[in-house]
């Protein structure tokens, strides 16, 4: 009786939140138009109420999962009594309906934070931002309630559930969707600010300063979400790939690229009051790509036309949401962008110009991913050709942009604002340039193959990391070594954030190139007791046993890894079977290292004895995700800069303290 009440309460809260969102969409907008303070003022309590109601609703659904209430259809389809508690909780968003509720929770959370922390925004701008934010919420409340209601009941509650897909029962994937959604939805704030600014017809430095933290936060979460997903694919799918250019991956990568561009152009708005209309456009596109990503993932249209046809209501509704918001925003942009007068002037050689180039490269590379992702659909609809666009296309068409970006990044990032000098900028970089080339040549000489990818990756990585170090070193001013180190510690957090993020980019480039170029793979059949060599390591298959897990049975192998006669470690790759879902999974065993990962997979027993075994040596694999973490860390550090803190106006006084 009690539990029943909680579910109904959740459902009711969701419907109520829908109503509040409609109210918040309409009233403050009219209030801002008529300059009516009390109408504008309802936006904040409404945003907070909306969030609390969705939180109640989300809590109720979580409660149903935790208590295994199989009278809810969603719980029955995605949970099981024996499932570990953490996966009962992550099961809430491990399905379509629940993940949309999570989306909504985060969307309203951002709205509520804008209401709580937006005290220093002008009243009208705040009212409009919150109204636009509410309009997005209205669209998705309608989507959830009409096509994806998580609170539907089963007439006869079954005794047990069908369990969550075993591959999703994994810590990496438990937290992958929340981070990704924080990123996707975080970009809705940039969108709301852009629309509000277009309605106001005014964009100034302050606008740039308000938009940047939200974009930065969203970008950090996207970075972490994408990295988690890639890491999960690496260890879970059993062959150690980390990126597949899959439509759903691209769906998250496109907003990442555009929001990275937006971050940089917002700096120009904030510091130099230039590139205003372009920045507005990027803010619209960034959220547009988030919506597109949601459409791709939720409708299944790109993975299979049939998946789309199975449930056209969902796909069509998201497509309508996408068309209305993107179409409306772009129309508004076309009408109003002309009035965004930019002020700052700058010479062709300047930080501003470098950031324009950054934007060109990031935006075009995003376009490449976009066209590659939708091309199979276009080719089928317009030209009747059923074809695929896979990794070879993206590697050929996308990589050059990243190479050029990495080449110009160190120079662009130390050019002076307004009017820079190329010779002055390149001088401190020269030693790093020489070092990078030397490292590239060295790795070319040391490697066994003749591939250029590894050495180029080494050189580019070193160049970008070195450039970031040179930048931060230059900022420490003149004088002795110790003085400069001391001053480096007192540099603004934003400077350090920039350095970390750029270094992260260099590290990731290096990791990807090194792993792809120098990976060793070995596939063979081996008996228990056999010994074989892969690269500088030897392996022995010591034993294969059967073990029972909480909700699976597993075949576990003990494999020893040796180097120079010394045993390094024993790895235990598994082949699991989940009886409820009737699905096997491959659990690779990995010895993580800074220089290399050793990655082993156990296969099926062979007909004439022995087991199939795969061994990989993956050099510098962890640098890929290490670089992503460093980028995210850079974002966090920059967010903590007092200039960006939401009380920026009141913090201004402390900024006046004599130059640091």
């Amino acid at each position, binding site marked *: 009786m009690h539990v029943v009440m909680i579910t109904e309460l959740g459902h009711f809260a969701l419907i109520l939140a829908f109503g509040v969102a409609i109210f918040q969409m309409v009233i403050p907008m009219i209030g801002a138009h008529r300059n009516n303070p009390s109408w504008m003022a309802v936006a904040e309590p409404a945003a907070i109420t909306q969030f609390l109601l969705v939180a109640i609703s989300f809590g109720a659904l979580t409660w149903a999962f935790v208590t295994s209430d199989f009278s809810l259809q969603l719980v029955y389809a995605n949970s099981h009594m024996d499932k570990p508690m953490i996966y009962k909780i992550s099961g809430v968003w491990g*399905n*379509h309906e629940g993940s949309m509720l999570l989306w909504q929770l985060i969307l309203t959370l951002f709205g509520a934070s804008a209401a709580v922390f937006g005290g220093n925004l002008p009243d009208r701008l705040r009212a409009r931002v919150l109204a636009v934010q509410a309009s997005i919420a209205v669209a998705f409340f309608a989507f959830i309630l009409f096509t994806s209601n998580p609170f539907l009941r089963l007439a006869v509650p079954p005794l047990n559930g069908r369990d969550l*897909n075993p591959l999703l029962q994994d810590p990496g994937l438990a937290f992958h969707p929340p981070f990704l959604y924080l990123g996707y939805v975080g970009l809705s704030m940039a969108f709301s600010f852009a629309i509000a600014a277009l309605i106001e017809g005014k964009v100034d430095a302050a606008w740039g300063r308000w938009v940047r933290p939200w974009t930065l936060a969203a970008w950090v979460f996207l970075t972490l979400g994408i990295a988690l*997903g890639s890491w999960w*694919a690496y260890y879970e*799918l*059993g*062959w150690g*790939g980390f990126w*597949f*250019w*899959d*439509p759903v991956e691209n769906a998250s990568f496109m907003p990442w690229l555009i929001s990275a561009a937006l971050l940089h152009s917002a700096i120009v708005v904030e510091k130099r009051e230039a*590139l205003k209309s*372009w920045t507005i456009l990027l803010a619209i596109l960034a959220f547009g790509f988030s919506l597109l990503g949601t459409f791709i*993932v939720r409708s299944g249209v790109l*993975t*299979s036309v049939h998946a789309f046809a199975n449930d056209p209501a969902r796909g069509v509704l998201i497509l309508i949401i996408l068309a209305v918001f993107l179409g409306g925003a772009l129309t508004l942009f076309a009408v109003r962008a002309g009035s965004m007068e*930019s002020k700052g*002037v*700058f*010479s*062709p050689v300047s930080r*501003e*110009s470098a950031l*324009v*180039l950054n*934007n*060109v490269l990031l*935006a*075009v590379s995003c376009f*490449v991913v976009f*066209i*590659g992702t939708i*091309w199979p659909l276009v080719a089928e609809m317009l*030209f009747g*050709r*059923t*074809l*695929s*666009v*896979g*990794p*070879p*296309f993206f590697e*050929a*068409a996308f990589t050059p942009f990243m190479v050029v970006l990495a080449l110009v990044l160190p120079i662009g990032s130390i050019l002076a604002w307004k009017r820079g000098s190329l010779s002055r900028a390149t001088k401190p970089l020269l030693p790093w340039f020489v070092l990078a080339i030397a490292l590239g040549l060295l790795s070319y000489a040391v490697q066994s193959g003749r591939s250029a990818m590894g050495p180029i990756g080494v050189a580019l990585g070193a160049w970008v990391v070195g450039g970031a170090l040179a930048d931060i070193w230059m900022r420490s001013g003149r004088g002795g070594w110790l003085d400069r180190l001391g001053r480096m510690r007192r540099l603004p957090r934003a400077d350090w954030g920039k350095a970390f993020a750029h270094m992260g980019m260099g590290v990731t480039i290096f990791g990807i190139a090194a792993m792809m170029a120098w990976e060793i793979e070995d*596939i063979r*059949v081996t008996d228990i007791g056999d010994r074989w060599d892969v690269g500088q390591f030897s392996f022995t298959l010591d034993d294969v046993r059967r073990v029972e897990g909480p909700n699976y049975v597993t075949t576990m192998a003990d494999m020893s890894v040796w180097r120079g006669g010394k045993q390094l470690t024993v790895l235990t790759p598994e*082949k699991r079977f989940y009886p409820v879902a009737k*699905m*096997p*999974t*491959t659990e690779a065993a990995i010895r993580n290292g800074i220089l290399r990962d050793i990655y082993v*997979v156990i*296969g*099926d027993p*062979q007909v004439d004895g022995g087991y*199939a075994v*795969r061994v990989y040596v993956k050099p510098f694999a962890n640098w890929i995700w290490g670089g992503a973490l460093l980028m995210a860390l850079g974002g966090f550090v920059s967010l903590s800069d007092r200039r960006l803190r939401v009380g920026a106006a009141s913090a201004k006084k402390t900024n006046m303290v004599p130059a640091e």
Partner: protein
Amino acid sequence: MKRLILILCILSGPAFAVEPSEILDDPALEERARELSQGLRCPVCQNETIDESNATLAQELRIVLRERLVAGDTDEEAVTYMVSRYGEYVLLRPDARGANLILWLAAPLMLLLALWVGITAIRRRNIAPEPLSQDEEEALEKILKQ
């Protein structure tokens, strides 16, 4: 949840991509086979190469490909054979013929367009600073007269 279909596909067959029994004795030939199969898509999977896939059909394709190479096909001939037999769909790197030209030329054209827009924007910004306003003019005069 993202890769669900792909995952189901992996699990539909014996769970182990390239089987040791498939590997050719000639390492040079095997390396070519691996390289080529990384550019061919498993027709029943979601965006997986036949090199990675565990589906039975992917295994079939791997074996057919190796047979062609053993029979003396060049890389191109082997790929053409696979396309003629399984359709354009298996090519992960779409050819640059017909409508696909749009796909391949999109990036360079877009880059040129973006560079052009960027350069015009930079040029437009690179104008002489605005003339002084009347107040500023007067203030300047005052200072100069002092």
